[in-house]
């Protein structure tokens, strides 16, 4: 699941990952939580931080409190600097701009972690 408010980044990530994975997208944190309510938890979530309606930190807090969602590996992809994410147990952190290879490697590791 790609949770990203920037439509260009959302589009290009969906396109880049869809040859290997089934990709769902959400344009803000609330939409992501709504999708989680109605669908099976994804193998991995790529989460932006600065988003309208519900930001990434709030999503992380909600995930960690939920019995099913707490185990979803989350890769944070953010253009913000100075964020401290240690307390939220994220699987990985990518600072924008990042390369596709770095994201793909992290996703592979996250999927292995999830299924292993």
């Amino acid at each position, binding site marked *: 699941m790609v949770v990203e408010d*920037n439509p*260009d*980044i959302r*589009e*290009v*990530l969906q*396109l*880049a990952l869809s*040859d290997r994975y089934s990709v769902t997208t959400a344009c803000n944190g609330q939409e992501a939580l709504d999708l989680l309510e109605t669908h099976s938890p994804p193998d991995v979530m790529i989460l932006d931080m*600065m988003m309208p309606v519900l930001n990434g930190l709030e999503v992380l807090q909600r995930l960690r409190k939920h019995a099913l969602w707490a185990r979803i590996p989350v890769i944070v992809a953010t*253009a*913000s*600097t100075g964020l401290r994410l240690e307390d939220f147990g994220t699987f990985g952190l990518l*600072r*924008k*701009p*990042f*390369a*596709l290879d770095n994201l793909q490697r992290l996703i592979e590791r996250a999927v292995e972690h999830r299924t292993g």
Partner: protein
Amino acid sequence: MLHDFLEEHRQDLIARTEAKAKARPGRKATQEDVRHGVPLFLTQLGAALRAQAATQTPVPNRDISAGAVSHGQEMLRIGFTLSQVVHGYGDVCQAVTELAGDLDVPITVHEFHTLNRALDDAIADSVTEYARQRDSSLGFQQRELICAAILAWQMLTRGIVGTGGNTAALLTRSLESLRKLSTLTGDMAPIPDPGSAI
């Protein structure tokens, strides 16, 4: 005493400041905009003058700094220019000295020093915060645009998508936005028009 004068003529001073801001070219201040910064500054200036009168020495006023930082953030958020931030404080100073002149209210040298110092501190802090927030916001936008451009570029060069489709258009759009952004930030190298560069 000047602090009594500020209290007594508070509404008139706010109205005069508002009129001066409206007379200036650029985005017009609404009543809401002006009332946000000026009343707080007048209150803090009054406190600084009162403290100075009690001790006969200039007193550093941390409230003025804190208020000015918030004011700088607010002015950026509602779309004012840096010039308007600076002139806004100048308007307060002019309103105070003009009204005092009209009403023959004397301003002592000590009071004038305190007024000037308060204005200097407020302008410095609000401008610093305005610039800090603006640079941070522009940096954020730059990183987002570069990210979209890099991902699109990698998709194109690896042949994941064709060069005539949406991803190529997305790359052009990102570069065009970066170019526009580079014209806003004087410290960034200019980016050529993607239409002519590609």
